[in-house]
């Protein structure tokens, strides 16, 4: 029972969604619409998972004095001092608004912007014409760059046309080929899941 029940739920819920989309009998669409709402209610009541896992992780870090454990205190303080503020004032309240605009967003953007520096150094260090494959990648990338930055057009008016051609012809065809494979892969995995063949999520291996 403990093993089968989850697999039965997987199968039934998945088949219901499919039948409601393909066929029109039995008020199935309404049933699935109800289940949609249920799914969201379930997620709502499971909302503490993230915060619990994070708390466990950082409390353990502190308790076991793992390397850099004192930063875990920063996270814990941030969570438990800020949480009541958001709960009381609401997500659009003055303090959450101030903190989102002046603390969260700047940090989030700045950390992400490190990518901008990384890509330049990665382009320099890793982007070598080692073989034919890498050379093709390199030429396509450089032509694209020249086509997209306004300076490329200033140098030669042909660059935007070339980059446009690469984007809309070989790139688009290649991406479509990949996606056709990927779609079928996703379908097949979904079928395996529904049939109970892919049950790694139950923790019993593949």
């Amino acid at each position, binding site marked *: 029972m403990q093993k089968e029940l989850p697999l039965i739920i997987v199968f039934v819920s998945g088949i219901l969604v499919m039948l409601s989309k393909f066929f029109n009998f039995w008020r199935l669409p309404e049933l699935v619409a109800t289940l949609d709402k249920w799914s969201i209610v379930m997620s709502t009541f499971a909302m503490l998972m993230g915060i619990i896992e994070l708390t466990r992780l950082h409390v353990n870090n502190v308790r076991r004095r793992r390397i850099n454990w004192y930063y875990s205190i920063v*996270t814990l303080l941030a969570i438990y001092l800020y949480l009541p503020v958001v*709960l009381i004032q609401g997500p659009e309240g003055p303090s959450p608004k101030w903190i989102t605009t*002046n*603390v969260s967003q700047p940090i989030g953007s700045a950390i992400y912007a490190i990518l901008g520096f990384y890509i330049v150094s990665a382009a320099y260090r890793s982007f070598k014409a080692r073989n034919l494959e890498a050379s093709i990648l390199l030429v396509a990338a450089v032509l694209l760059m020249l086509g997209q930055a306004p300076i490329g057009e200033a140098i030669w008016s042909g660059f935007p046309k070339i980059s446009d051609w690469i984007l809309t012809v*070989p790139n688009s065809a290649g991406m479509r080929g990949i*996606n056709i494979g990927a779609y079928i892969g996703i*379908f097949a995995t979904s079928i395996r899941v529904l049939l109970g063949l892919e049950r790694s999520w139950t923790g019993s291996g593949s």
Partner: protein
Amino acid sequence: MSAQTGLYIGALLTIMAWSYLYKENPLFRFTEHLYIGLVTAYGVGYTYHNYLVPIITKDIVQQGGYSLIIPAVAGLLIYARYIRGWVWLSRIPMAFWIGYGAGYSLAYTPAVFMKQIFDSFIQLNSINNIIYFLVLVSAIMFFIFTVKKDAGPMKWGHYAGRYSLMVAFGSAFGSITMAYLSLIIGRLSYVLCDALHLIK
């Protein structure tokens, strides 16, 4: 606190995060851990105000949707993982989401997928269309795993497929460069224009 103070703090935090470029250091780690905490707390607060409260007050109490108590309890089962011997109960909500997700992709994605295939039925009446067709077919051939590829058209298809994929990945790299440089520009204009007013 005033808007200007906020901007100063934002600028300071930006510089603290960027100190990572020199090397990993306590300032960076502080901003990172602060960010995790703030984002997590905000997320829970947001879900509380925008989902939990309206569901309880409006859907359940006001409109009498007491049947929603079933999914509510099912959602709470996820916490059974923390109780020894009850772990399997937490797989019930997970099973529902997983089955639901699989069903969704099987039900809805074929329509999008079919459109892509129909759009590939092109007339071979121009160089561009011929290239398009050859690249597409060879890219599909690259992803066939059970046919031997040591000889004949499969071999050529496989190689051609790999090279055409490289063109696609190269153009992704080219445009991504611009995307990532945009991020630096965004931050610089925030620090220098908005916060410090050094550049107008």
